[in-house]
């Protein structure tokens, strides 16, 4: 997976979370008029991501708020479980996407 696709996936999740939170913020009494533009931007971005990766992301998002999270100090920042230290070595060799052995979230390395 190219680094740009990883960034696109993170941005897609940011947009999805922003759309969800906008709905909550609107319920509080704030005016949200640009949500349809956010949705269009979301679909445009999703179209750039490979289908298997997008399918995996969307399947995870159905059960988890965050499907892709960083791994820092060998800890998944989704479930906070320690990951095999080999992840760091693989990241340094250029691998950019991993899977949490506990929660199944997609992980990216955060130095």
């Amino acid at each position, binding site marked *: 997976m190219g680094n740009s696709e990883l960034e696109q996936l993170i941005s897609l999740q940011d947009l999805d*979370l922003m759309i969800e*939170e*906008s709905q*909550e*913020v609107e319920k*509080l*009494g*704030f*005016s*949200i*008029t*640009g*949500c349809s533009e*956010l949705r269009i931007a979301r679909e445009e971005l999703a179209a750039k991501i490979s289908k298997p990766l997008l399918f995996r992301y969307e399947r995870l998002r159905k059960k988890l708020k965050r499907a892709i999270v960083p791994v820092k100090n060998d800890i998944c*920042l989704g479930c906070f479980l320690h990951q095999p230290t080999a992840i760091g070595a693989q990241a340094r060799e250029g691998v950019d996407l991993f899977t949490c052995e506990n929660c199944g979230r997609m992980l990216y390395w955060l130095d």
Partner: protein
Amino acid sequence: MQRHELRGHLREALFIPSMKATTKDQALEELLDLFVAERYVRNKQLVLEMLRQREMLGSTSLGKGVAVPHGRTTATADVIIAFGRSEKGVHFDASDEKPVTLFFMVIAPHNDEGNIYLPILGSLVTILKDTKKRNALNKVTTFAELVALIDGE
């Protein structure tokens, strides 16, 4: 969320009794500068861009002269609130077109412990809907007065 919990997110250093800003963008920047000066925010440009993007989604003015610019960012670790009062008022694209004199800026991390960000926004909206509170907030000159009002005294 109880009001005394809201008080815990206010900071005396993030209090402007008389803002200088005359435009919406200046108001965002003037309030954000406090977060930067006190190191509650690590990257000013990143947060300023986030706040501008949020305003493009819809003005954070609630009408009646109040605005609550808000958003989440990776550039902060805590949910913190800044308060600013503008005597002349600032045009903030409010639905009622009234200039904004009261600002509460809320900056939160993406992962806030206990998910307090939305309850904080909700509490502020409740307080700002109260005409008496708004009138009193428009007269505050000290941080202690602000805290007393938020506490409901």
